[in-house]
């Protein structure tokens, strides 16, 4: 069984090389990144030799890897056919050989190998002496086995949920903590290390908790062996092995259950309330706004976009939170918030998808198109405006300069209007069909539309940045004016300017889409969301 499943996994991997150009490129990129992760992790762990906080840092790194194995398979559910027990339910297979076979299949591939190579870095970084090296090798192997078993247990236990719409929605939202982790590693940690705010000793406190989890136990076993406590080291490894056995037992139970349990994907809950909002406002604008508003809170793509926007706002305001550039950081927070609100929605037709036929039947003139754009903008603005007002204000209060938060409101309002207007413009000028692929909850352009997508995103970012320059200049130029006069004037000015930009975007978008609705529908119909 193990041989067959390993062969299947290898055939699936090699099949990717023989399929389309896109899958070939994806396979090569994935393998290259895995190699880089393997080398980077090995070198990073090895470099901790003679570092006082080596064991604390190793425990943190091992735990981060385990977390990655816990979350990523949920996001990429559907990419690996062997992850879903439903694909095997039709075959007459017994649970025990199946568990061993699936574990072997899990261990096959570039990423498990990269994990093992990278984590073997502790043989250099943490191990001192032959016995410690031996313990380190066993610890790395156990850590990889723990990660694989954990990933299998979670995906199998949640497989029923993952096949349901609700489960897929929840899994899609896992992209937000992944994005946060990425930002922490790519932006926050390097800066903190650069400013000497983060040293190896900073991890000691975290490690006091992590040392009792299996990845931490594995790291500390090597430390114990290096300091002459071989007995403790073996005991720790036995605990890791016991946790793997326990996870394996739970996984076998979950697998037996999943193989004989009916698909529950159609058993779903009802939505609250019985009618669309904005019933009294009437008109096409209110109708489209009502639909769009419902989508803002129910569509996982919209929720991901809001989550990413907040993460970006917090990341760009870190300089203010650290007290280095209080005004710039808060302004960046408001500006990026407004800009990304529009940028992430710069393909209204493509994102409407084939369902756009309902709208297309009534969008016969410029007036109707204006209402359509205005309705979508209104729904987004209902969430975006409080966001660009409150988040920078909170950042400014935390950084000890609340006035900056009030100043940032002017920029936030202007950037939101600019972002929405620019989004409307690019929706009509560079529309493209979007699709969601297995492994990524964030939609991307359908093959053949890369130019439009890149043009719309970069064009949108540049246009929004240019359009908010007058507000930034006004904030800078009025520095000598009393705050009591300056702040209300700037906020009112920013709001009016933003509203004008949004209206201009609506007019431009509608004008450009007029007479092109059938063509826009044909593009939208190619979206797969």
């Amino acid at each position, binding site marked *: 069984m193990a041989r067959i499943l390993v062969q299947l996994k290898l055939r699936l991997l090699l099949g990717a090389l023989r399929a389309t150009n896109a899958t070939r490129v994806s396979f090569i990129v994935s393998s290259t990144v895995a190699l880089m992760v393997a080398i980077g992790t090995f070198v990073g762990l090895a470099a901790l030799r003679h570092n006082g906080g080596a064991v604390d840092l190793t425990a943190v790194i091992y735990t981060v890897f385990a977390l990655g194995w816990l979350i990523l398979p949920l996001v990429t559910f559907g990419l690996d056919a062997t992850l879903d027990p439903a694909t095997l339910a039709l075959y007459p297979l017994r649970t025990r050989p199946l568990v061993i076979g699936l574990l072997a299949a899990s261990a096959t591939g570039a990423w498990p190998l990269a994990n093992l190579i990278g984590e073997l870095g502790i043989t250099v970084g943490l191990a001192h002496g032959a016995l410690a090296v031996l313990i380190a090798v066993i610890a790395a192997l156990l850590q990889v086995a723990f990660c694989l078993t954990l990933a299998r247990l979670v995906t199998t236990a949640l497989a029923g949920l993952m096949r349901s719409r609700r489960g897929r929605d929840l899994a899609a939202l896992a992209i937000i903590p992944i994005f946060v982790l990425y930002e922490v590693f790519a932006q926050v940690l390097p800066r903190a290390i650069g400013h000497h705010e983060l040293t190896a000793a900073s991890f000691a406190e975290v490690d006091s908790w992590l040392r009792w989890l299996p990845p931490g136990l594995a790291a500390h076993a090597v430390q114990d062996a290096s300091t002459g406590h071989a007995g403790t080291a073996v005991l720790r490894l036995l605990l890791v092995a016991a946790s793997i056995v326990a996870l394996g037992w739970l996984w076998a139970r979950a697998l037996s259950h999943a193989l004989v349990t009916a698909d529950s994907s159609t058993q779903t809950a009802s939505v609250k309330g019985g009618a669309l909002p904005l019933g009294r406002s009437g008109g096409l604008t209110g109708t489209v706004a009502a639909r769009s508003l419902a*989508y803002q809170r129910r569509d996982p793509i919209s929720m991901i976009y809001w989550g990413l926007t907040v993460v970006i706002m917090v990341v760009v305001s870190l300089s203010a939170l650290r007290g280095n550039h209080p005004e710039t950081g808060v302004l960046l927070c408001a500006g990026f918030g407004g800009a990304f609100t529009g940028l992430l929605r710069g393909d209204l037709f493509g994102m409407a998808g*084939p369902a756009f*036929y*309902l709208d297309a039947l009534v969008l016969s003139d410029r007036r109707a198109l204006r209402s359509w754009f205005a309705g979508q903008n209104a729904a987004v603005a209902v969430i975006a405006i409080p966001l660009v007002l409150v988040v920078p204000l909170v950042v400014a209060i935390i950084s000890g300069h609340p006035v900056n938060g009030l100043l940032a409101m002017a920029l936030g309002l202007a950037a939101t209007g600019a972002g929405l207007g620019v989004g409307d413009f690019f929706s009509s000028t560079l529309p493209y069909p979007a699709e969601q692929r297995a492994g990524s909850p964030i939609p991307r352009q359908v093959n053949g539309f890369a130019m439009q997508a890149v043009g719309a995103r970069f064009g949108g970012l540049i246009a929004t940045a240019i359009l908010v320059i007058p507000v930034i200049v006004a904030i800078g130029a009025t520095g000598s004016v009393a705050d009591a006069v300056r702040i209300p004037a700037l906020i009112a000015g920013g709001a009016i300017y933003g509203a004008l930009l949004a209206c201009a975007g609506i007019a431009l978008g509608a004008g450009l889409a007029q007479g092109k609705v059938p063509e826009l529908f044909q593009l939208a119909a190619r979206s797969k969301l």
Partner: protein
Amino acid sequence: MAEPASAGQASTGQAGTGQAVAQPAISVRGLRKSFGSKEAVAGIDLDIGKGSLAGLVGPNGAGKTTSLSMMTGLLRPDRGTVLINGVSVWTDPAAAKATIGVVPAEVRLFDRLSGEELLEYAGRLHGLPAGEARQRAAQLLDVLDLKDDAKRLVADYSTGMRKKAALGCALIHNPRVLFLDEPLEGVDPVSADVIRRLLKRFADSGSTVLFSSHVMELVEQVCDHVSIIAAGRIVATGTMDEVRAGKTLQQAFIDLVGARGTGGEGLSWLGSSSS
């Protein structure tokens, strides 16, 4: 292969329920559409009378969906005219589209709305006041047997339920002409019966229905007019009796379009007797 005599015999027939029709509900002239070098629709002429329940049948890839998309203003033709009750879909789209309802073949709807929200949305898009739209939505969901699922998200609906929800969206503004592309594809027999009865009732009230299908039995059962399309051309059109010419519709269709393929002679291993 198609039989020109048979096609010619029926091709002059203007659809209707037998009565003389002054102005057809749907009038198509010289409709053409090419995708690159492939001519999907090669110039079709069609008249469907008011109150008719008409079927457009043809094999896969014959041009049914392309033709219906052009008739409903969702795909721009290379050439030709489409009139709905005398109003051109392509020169006065607002007036023409206000009187039509459409159910596309692949019903991908705004699936993050519940069934009742979706129908209300469709009604409000067509200018109905919210209260009226809600009332009609509730009535349609009841008739379409979706009342118990009205508050569930359309994302959780089965294919048949989606088809019925799409039909509700197409009917909520009480259109005078209804276009349906493969309305019973992937629909269970109970839901199919609900849809069939609703279409009959709609056509009996004097409204017009044109739907595409490759299920001959269905077209034969419910339609008073049928057009056969193959390779982008109408090869026969007229009343059901005219097109059938004494045969079953299935046989007339095969005679006109031509049978394809073999009976699987190469598969000598297939079947329990060969093991």
